[in-house]
């Protein structure tokens, strides 16, 4: 349809015209038409044939991502039709297709004959690239951004390993093109060596499906089909990952998993989000590394609207535990939480009045007495708080309010079926922050004394939620150390704390915090929790260092008067441009009430290091000090050349307490650069150049 040639421009230092009007341009010769731009040493134009005879070296830039190099050529004046000799097409500075001849057809198709295609750099010192595709003919459709190979031999280090009569690959600049993504080879001790071959299918602008068959053999076998479905909506997004397998680990069973999530913004600023997680059996996710670090699957639907002084959140969660020690019959499997909150600034009183209404319900599948207990709870809260400046820089604070909890219990004869508790409370607080300014460094010391009273409840309700207690500067001054309203802290107690902050924005800063809780009388609420039991809680000690070049160390410990630690957790995070290291050490004393039957002592190191633009390594090491052996070690190495990425991953972990021989697995992945837009964020390593 566009046989009509387009106008084009030729520029040169000298142009001579002979008697027949033949132009000969020489000296920095350039020809341009639209976004085609050609450079050559000499161009001859014959008005009779309306064509250009071009002598090389020729560089034809056709479009932003495609360059054609050739020795000589004969093209139409608009550079859209014609023939180039010993041409080399370079696409997106990556994939190079060299050929004896290149035919340009209507500015859209480049047809190359006797071609070699590769993104590896080829030079005298390295004549054979790591991979190349040798074929009789290649057609590069620049409009559809597809490359068609006829009679193609895929060669690795010069050795043909794969033949295809017809092969189609997306050109590097194409995104979301239907076709195979990069295959990967995976080897694990359970499933042997296998290959994953992902196939991407775009469905219009906003949907796509990726199907990945995974077949392996050797020490085990698997026939697996993985699926990923994604859809973007105008006001939302949905993604689902799943897989179906038949393998040697569970011979006769079909194993499957589905993990999906999505969100939608609803009218009047409401926001809906949901996620689905289910698996056919406990080990499936672990065996195939689909585990997303999940040992308990939760599927949830959440609707919420959060504004400056108004909060609404409604959520239903369905649990399915994969832990060997959990019996899904006796675990709460359906949990509903609805929260309302309103904050108001009362006219005369000032301060902040907060009114809340919360519903919580959790059900167990079993109907048995005690083991199948279901709990429902309605809580009303009203709270008013305010602070004033007193004499000598003291800051007084007052807070008063009440909880109204109505708890309904079923399938548990130990508890009344419904109980209502009215629990008023009052708080008096005194802070006395002191500041010392010294040049860039400022010190702030802040002692805090808080007196809290809340009415003791004479009712007894089950405690399914508040079974794990923590003590840190986040709840040192809070109304209750119990994480959920199924238990409220009672009686008269004093929360005492002191924090010292040295802050120097240009240098380093540090923050110490100490705290303790003193009770007028031990009501036995915290029996079994060593940190909080008795009339005096453990000491809380926290230190936080923010050191130059993004190194931060944080340590939190609870210990009693003679420095006998109940908990000690240390974190060190250091991230720089080319590496980041995170190491954590935790020591948790055993605590039967919290079902921690052994002391937990573990040291982990996580490090990612980009050695240089070609090599990057990752390390994930976990040492179980209680069992005195490395619990798991994962080492990853990626070597990137201009045309291939090699990813190695080595993983070793112990899967049983007493097992001596660990599971080791080794996986290996090869990505061919220059085939399709892999969308990888990082740029390709620059070519070394032939002298390299």
């Amino acid at each position: 349809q566009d046989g009509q040639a387009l106008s084009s421009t030729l520029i040169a230092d000298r142009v001579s015209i002979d008697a027949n009007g033949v132009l000969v341009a020489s000296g920095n010769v350039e020809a341009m038409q639209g976004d085609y731009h050609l450079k050559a040493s000499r161009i001859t134009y014959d008005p009779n044939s309306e064509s250009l005879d071009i002598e090389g070296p020729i560089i034809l830039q056709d479009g932003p991502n495609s360059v054609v190099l050739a020795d000589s050529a004969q093209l139409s004046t608009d550079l859209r039709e014609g023939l180039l000799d010993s041409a080399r097409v370079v696409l997106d500075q990556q994939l190079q297709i060299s050929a004896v001849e290149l035919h340009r057809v209507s500015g859209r198709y480049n047809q190359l004959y006797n071609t070699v295609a590769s993104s590896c750099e080829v030079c005298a010192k390295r004549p054979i690239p790591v991979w190349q595709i040798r074929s009789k003919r290649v057609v590069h459709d620049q409009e559809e951004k597809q490359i068609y190979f006829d009679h193609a031999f895929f060669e690795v280090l010069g050795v043909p390993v794969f033949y295809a009569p017809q092969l189609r690959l997306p050109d590097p600049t194409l995104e979301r093109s239907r076709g195979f993504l990069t295959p990967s080879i995976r080897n694990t001790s359970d499933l042997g060596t296998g290959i994953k071959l992902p196939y991407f299918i775009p469905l219009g602008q906003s949907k796509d499906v990726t199907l990945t068959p995974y077949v392996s053999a050797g020490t085990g076998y698997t026939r697996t089909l993985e699926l990923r479905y994604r859809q973007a909506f105008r006001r939302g997004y949905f993604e689902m990952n799943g897989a179906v397998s038949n393998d040697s680990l569970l011979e006769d069973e079909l194993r499957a998993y589905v993990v999906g999530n999505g969100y939608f913004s609803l009218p009047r600023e409401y926001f809906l989000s949901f996620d689905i997680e289910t698996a056919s059996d406990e080990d499936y996710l672990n065996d195939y590394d689909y585990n997303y670090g999940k040992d308990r699957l939760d599927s949830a639907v959440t609707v919420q609207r959060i504004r400056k002084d108004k909060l609404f959140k409604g959520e239903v969660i369905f649990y399915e535990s994969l832990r060997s020690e959990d019996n899904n019959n006796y675990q709460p499997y359906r949990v509903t939480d609805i929260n309302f909150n309103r904050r108001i600034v009362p006219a005369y009183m000032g301060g902040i009045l907060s009114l809340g209404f919360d519903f919580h319900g959790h059900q167990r599948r079993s109907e048995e007495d005690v083991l199948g207990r279901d709990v429902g709870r309605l809580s009303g809260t009203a709270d008013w708080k305010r602070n004033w400046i007193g004499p000598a820089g003291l800051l007084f604070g007052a807070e008063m309010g009440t909880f109204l909890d109505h708890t309904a219990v079923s399938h548990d004869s130990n508890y009344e079926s419904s109980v209502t508790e009215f629990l008023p409370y009052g708080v008096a607080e005194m802070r006395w922050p002191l500041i010392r300014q010294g040049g860039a460094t400022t010190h702030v010391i802040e002692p805090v004394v808080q007196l809290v009273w809340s009415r003791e409840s004479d009712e007894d309700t089950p405690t399914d939620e508040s079974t794990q207690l923590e003590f840190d500067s986040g709840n040192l001054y809070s109304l209750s150390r119990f994480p959920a309203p199924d238990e409220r802290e009672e009686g008269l107690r004093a929360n005492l704390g002191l924090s010292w902050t040295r802050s120097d924005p240009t240098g380093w800063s540090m923050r110490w915090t100490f705290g303790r809780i003193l009770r007028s009388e031990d009501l036995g609420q915290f029996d079994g929790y060593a940190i909080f039991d008795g009339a005096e809680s453990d000491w809380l000690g926290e230190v936080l260092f923010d050191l130059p070049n993004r190194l931060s160390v944080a340590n939190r410990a609870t210990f009693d008067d003679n420095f006998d630690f109940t908990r000690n957790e240390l974190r060190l995070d250091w991230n720089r441009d080319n590496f980041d290291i995170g190491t954590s050490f935790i020591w948790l004393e055993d605590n039967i009430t919290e079902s921690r039957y052994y002391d937990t002592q573990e040291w982990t190191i996580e490090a990612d290091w980009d050695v240089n633009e070609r090599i990057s390594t990752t390390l994930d090491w976990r040492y179980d000090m209680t069992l005195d052996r490395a619990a798991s070690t994962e080492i990853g190495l990626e070597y990137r050349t201009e045309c291939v990425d090699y990813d190695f991953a080595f993983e070793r972990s112990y899967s049983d307490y007493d097992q001596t021989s660990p599971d080791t697995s080794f996986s290996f992945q090869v990505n061919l650069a220059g085939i399709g837009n892999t969308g990888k964020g990082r740029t390709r390593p620059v070519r070394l150049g032939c002298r390299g």
Partner: protein
Amino acid sequence: QGTEVGFGNPEHDSSAPVEVVADQLDVQRSEGKAKFTGNVVVTQGLMKLFGDVVDVEYAENAAGDTEIQWVHAIGNVTLLNGVEAAEGDDAVYTVESGVVVMTGDVLVTQGENTMAGEKLTVQLETGVGQMEGRVRVLFNPESEPEKTE
């Protein structure tokens, strides 16, 4: 067959008489010079040279007749020779050698194509033109594709 293009017309004869027509003529006989001003047209055979002002130099030839040796046209200069047309600010025609050198935003139209440069040298007998300076050629295809044998 193809359109006849190029500067040449083989019949050009440098020894043909040169005729100059202008609105006004000032002659300095002693120095063998003349200055023509106003719509000056210099003609030799098929070749025509237009300009606002043309200075001419005379000399006796071997046969004793006075003859124009050298023509210098200035201002809106146009050279017509066969099908080609070249425009510029200034042109010098050395009759004996049959060479015209045009300078100053020279523009040559050749059928649908145009060529612009700083200096154009034309051999009238051979029809060979040489354009120099950052030459820019604009190829415009004929409106209807031409069938060339």
